[in-house]
Structures are given as structure tokens and as C-alpha cells.
């Protein structure tokens, strides 16, 4: 009977699917287990010895911060200029990178009438810009320009242009083409079509991604500071280098960094929620 055969077919298909899922899950578990045991071997300190020491360092700096007493808040304040520098690196990088990303996105989406032959070229360019780790660009520029915030800024901006460019061009792909057609019927040129038909449609989404990127870039600039690009990262490296006794300074930087990141996260997620409506803001 045909129905029986069909049922048989469905059953085998389901069995095969279950087998695939099982194999997939087992594979992930195997990778996790073998990966952790292998990394444990490769690590210079083992997991179990390390576990007992895990709270030593945080404990040490908390104790030193506690001993500093009210002077601790003074310490936090002394590091605000460095934090501001990191924020500036992130801010300028996001602004410049974002501006470049808008240009790249407009040049790489068929939906907004970009010039055809340019589209694949710009797309590959953005792929490369995204793939190059910020660290590499930053280290290279630090070597040429010397230790300063500018190399970090350029490195972060470079990566931002690639990453935002891709997201922006995805936004472009989903817009309504009717305003563009309306404007071209009036004889508007390409720049005018972009300005009056595309930008008003995409602006909220662009801004939302822009804020998200700002959030990411603050973290990235802090890390790049650690390899010599100035800002809070550099201060952190200095205080950690002092070793024992400077725990209160390190703790002050940790606290400042944590508070700033939290503040920016909250502000940006609130603003993004307002821009694109709750639920879509991620």
C-alpha cells in the first residue's frame, strides 16, 4: 500500500535526521572535551592549579583598593582623562569609519542603483577590511607613527568601515524602491536620489548600527591601548607592570572601565530601542 510505503519513508527520514542531530551534538561535545584537555596541556599553568588561584588576583586588588579607603575614589577620578582619550578614539573611529561605510554601502547595493561593475569590487574590499584584525593595523601604524592614539583610531576606523559597510548595504537591500523611482521620474540625479529617497528610509537603522558599533569600538580601543595606543589600556598596562602594591590603581581602572562600558551599553540600547522600536534593537 502506498500510504504504508510513505509512512516508512517518513520514518526513515526522521530517523536519519535524528541521527544527524545526534552526530552533530556528539561532535560539538567531542570538540569541547578534547579541546579543553588539549588546551589544558598547552597552557603554561594547569586548570586545577589555576582554579585555586583564580580569586587571588581579584582578591588582592580588592583588598588593596579597600585599604586605600576614600582615596580610592580620588584614584578613579585621576584616570578619567585617560578614559576620555579611549572614548575619543572610539568616537572618532566610529564617525570616520561610519562615514566611509555609508559611501561603501551606497556603492555596493544594486537596490540603490550603484554602478554595476563597482559592486563586486567594493564588496570584496569590505570583506578584506573586516577580515584584517585591528591589532595588525594598529601595531603596524604604531611602528611607523610612534605610540599615540592615532594608530588605534585609524585601525578601528578601518575595521568599522568594513563591518558597518556590510550591515548598511544589507539595510539598503531591504528598502522600498518606489521613492527612488519617483525621484528619477522627476529627473533627479543619483546623488539626489540617494539623499532624498534612500537616506530618509535607512537613517534610523544606520544610526542604530552606528551606536552598536560605538559600543564595540569602546571595548576595542581599550584593548588596543594595552599594546601601546594610549588611553585607559596603556594606563592599565603601566599599573599592572608595577606589580604588587599598585593593586588599588589597577582596581580603580577596572572600576572606571566597567562603569563606562555599562553606561555606554545602557545608553546605546535605550537609544536604539527608540530608533527602531523595541524588540528589533540588537
Amino acid at each position, binding site marked *: 500500500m502506498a500510504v504504508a510505503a510513505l509512512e516508512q519513508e517518513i520514518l526513515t527520514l526522521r530517523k536519519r535526521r535524528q541521527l544527524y542531530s545526534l552526530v552533530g551534538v556528539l561532535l560539538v561535545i567531542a570538540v569541547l572535551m578534547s579541546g579543553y584537555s588539549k588546551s589544558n596541556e598547552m597552557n603554561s599553568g594547569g586548570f586545577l592549579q589555576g582554579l585555586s588561584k583564580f580569586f587571588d588576583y581579584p582578591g588582592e586588588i580588592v583588598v588593596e583598593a579597600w585599604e586605600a579607603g576614600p582615596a580610592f575614589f580620588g584614584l578613579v577620578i585621576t584616570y578619567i582623562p585617560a578614559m576620555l582619550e579611549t572614548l575619543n578614539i572610539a568616537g572618532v573611529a566610529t564617525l570616520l569609519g561610519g562615514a566611509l561605510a555609508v559611501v561603501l554601502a551606497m556603492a555596493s547595493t544594486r537596490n540603490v542603483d550603484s554602478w554595476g561593475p563597482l559592486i563586486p569590487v567594493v564588496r570584496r574590499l569590505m570583506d578584506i577590511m573586516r577580515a584584517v584584525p585591528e591589532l*595588525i593595523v594598529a601595531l603596524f601604524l604604531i611602528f611607523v607613527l610612534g605610540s599615540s592614539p592615532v594608530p588605534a583610531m585609524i585601525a578601528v576606523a578601518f575595521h568599522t568601515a568594513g563591518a558597518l559597510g556590510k550591515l548598511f548595504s544589507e539595510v539598503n537591500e531591504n528598502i522600498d524602491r518606489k521613492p527612488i523611482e519617483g525621484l528619477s521620474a522627476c529627473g533627479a540625479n543619483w546623488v539626489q536620489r540617494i539623499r532624498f529617497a534612500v537616506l530618509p528610509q535607512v537613517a534610523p537603522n544606520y544610526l542604530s548600527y552606528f551606536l552598536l558599533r560605538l559600543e564595540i569600538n569602546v571595548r576595542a580601543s581599550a584593548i588596543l591601548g594595552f599594546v601601546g595606543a594610549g588611553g585607559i589600556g596603556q594606563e592599565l598596562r603601566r599599573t599592572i607592570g608595577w606589580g604588587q602594591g599598585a593593586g588599588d590603581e589597577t582596581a580603580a581602572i577596572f572600576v572606571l572601565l566597567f562603569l563606562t562600558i555599562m553606561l555606554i551599553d545602557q545608553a546605546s540600547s535605550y537609544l536604539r530601542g527608540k530608533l527602531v522600536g523595541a524588540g528589533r534593537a540588537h
Partner: protein
Amino acid sequence: MAVDTLNAPILDPGTVFRGVRRRAWMTVALPIAVLMYLVYTWFSFGVPDLLAKAQPERAALLATDSVAYKVHVTKLLRRDIMEVAIEGERRATYAADELPDWVEVNGTDAAVDLGQGYSVTITGKVMEFDVPDYGLIRVTATNDGVRTELPPGPVPDWLRDDPKKFDARPTLDRRVQVTRTKIEVHNYFGGWENFWFSFQSELHGMSFSQLWALALSNERIDPAQSNMSLITHEFLDNPDWQHGEVFVALFETIMMALLGTLTAAFFGLPLAFLAARNFTSSSIVRFFTRRLFDFLRGIDMLIWSLIFIRAFGLGPLTGALAIAFTDTGSLGKLFSEALENIDNRQVEGVRATGANQIQRYRFGVIPQILPVFVSQVLYYLESNTRSATVIGALGAGGIGLMLVETMKTSRDWENTSYIIILTIVVVIVMDQISGWLRRRLIEGK
């Protein structure tokens, strides 16, 4: 009612004009604000100072050195010996009967042909450098410095004539230096030297087909191991390039990203249920789970890695844990948002068949969030491959640390570019794999 709306316009002109004026003001004020911010940072970053102090010649040096290598012809005047070596390294010194054909050594004297009419002869303590379009430069090393005899006319800018040291570099790929203790000629060649095998290896200079034949032949070069394993070992242990160590470092970096992301997903998903409004009715539990996510994310990878480096030392485990901690927060938050947005009808449908709670989760909830779950995990895997290089540079090991170290010694730029190229290749490959998986798993293509 219709009459009312006709008589009293909905929009009164005042509001409209206010709105228009506000927008017009914004279009002017916003760019000005951005511009002023950029001007402020221009000075606070010290860009003018930076431009004055920048060393563009370092970029040129880096670019030349990363695609070229030089062979030194050195005469050590104190010991009166002549040496020809790649990059002047003792390990890579040419034997007397295997000299490159552009050098002719005659006892302790030498004639070096630098191509295109440039040539150097070294006789005793005298170096003669023949430069086309300029003339013959004659430099003699004396007991307290050098004595230079230049052709008549103005001194060109590629030449540095100092009583202690003579240095001439007429083109980018030819250089001559004389001090009172040695005469040194550098001849530059394109390419990466000794890339496959070290200079001292028996395999140095063999072509690919020769190697292939060797690998298949039964006559062992080293009786202790097969030719195949000899070739592999000689390649991986090449002291100039350290292929073996570079590959291990790359592997460590990939491991950090993979383990960190998978662990984060593994812990993030169950925690996300605790943070989602429609799955956890207790607002206290929800509040604390969400604050836990914020805390993990807010501490940031930088601080986590510093703490873990202290506890666990260098290695992939440290990096993996730092990534796992930060991303448990990020992924947990994303998953809990996805969980709050699921369609409840599907869960109700499963419940109507008499399913218990686990079955409702398995068949009503998981299928809805699986696409978000998979795509976000893959996105994070992609970006964590890049993060892992940075964490490595902070001291967790892997390719990032190796990169920072080769850059610090700033001697062998070709090694640095090699590592950079490999890192970028790995990142791109991870990108492609995750993109391919995403398409397969989610869109079913």
C-alpha cells in the same frame, strides 16, 4: 465633525514652522558639532606633533625588508677574513667553494658585481665603489676611522661621509658601509630567503620535483627516519621561519575562539531561559540573571583575560575562558531577547497534545530560536577569531603574542609579514566556513 476639521486645521502653522525651523537648525548644527568634535580630537590626539615625528622611512624599510633579503659580503679587518652570508648570519654563511657567482673572492680580497654597472672591489683595507653616472669612490679604513676620496662635484644625498663611518646607498637594493674595523657590502634580492628549508639543511635549494622524487625514493638521507618525515621535520624546524611554532600558535588561536564560543553558547542558552519574561515568572531570578549578563559583558574581554592570565598562565585555555566569560553575557542577552519574541501559539499547540514541559521546550520553543541561536553563535565565532589574536597579544599566547614579539625585535620583517598573511588567511577561512554553515543550516541551501 467633518465641518469642525474643515474649519480648524489639524496642523496649525505655528507647529509646522517650529518643526521646520528645528530641522533646519539641526541640519546645520549637527555637522558643525561633528566638525568641532573632530577639531578637538585633532589637537587632543596631538596630530600635528605626530605628523612632525612620523617616520615614513620606517614604512619603506618595512616594505622592502618584508619582500626582500640581502646578502652581506663582509671583510673583517682585524681578523683579516672575508665572509659571505645571508643577512650576515653565521648560520647562513656560504662555504668558500659555493659562493654566489656575483662575488669573486681572492684570498682576503674580493670583487663584487652589484649589477647594472655597479661594482665593488676590496683590496687590503681599501674599498673601491664604482657608481655609474657618478664615478669611482675610494675609501680607505685607517686606524682611527675612514678616509674617503670622492669624485669631484657635489656630494650626492645617498652618501654619508663621516670620518668614523662611510655609508653609501645609491639605490634601494645596493649598500656599502666602511668603518675602521670592517668593510661591508649588501646586495638585495627579492623574495623570502630560506623559506622552505634552513640554509644548512641538505634539502636547501631543492626544487619541488626533486623533493617529490626524494620523498618517494627508498634511499634514506638520514637512516633514522624516512625521507618524507625528514622533509617534514626540516620544514617545520626551519630555524629562520619556525613554521612549526607558527602553526601551533595559529592552532592555539583557533582553539581559543572555538572553545570560547562553544562554551559561551553552552552556558548562555540555559541562562537565557532564566532571563526571559515568558519562561521565568520570578522577577528576582530574572533581575539577577540579567545583571549577571551585564556584569560578564561589562567586565570586558580585556579585564577577563588579564585576570585569567594571572590565574592560568599563558595558553589557549586562558584565552578560551576569557572569551567564554564575556560572550556568555552577550549571547545570553541575545538569546533571552529571542526567547521573549517567540510565537506562543506553537507552544500552546504542543501543550494541547498533552506534552509535558520538556517536550514543550523541545518541540515548541527550540525550533523557533534555533535559527537565531545558530546564526549568532556563528557570527560570534567569526568575530572571536579576530578577538583571539588580540587577547593573544595581551599575553594569552597564540599568534597574537608571536606577532607582537616579532614586531618588537623589528629585525626580520619578512617573518612579521608571514605571520600577518597567515593570520588574515585563517580569519578569512573561518569567515567563509561560518558563512557556509550559516547558509546550509538556516536557509537549507
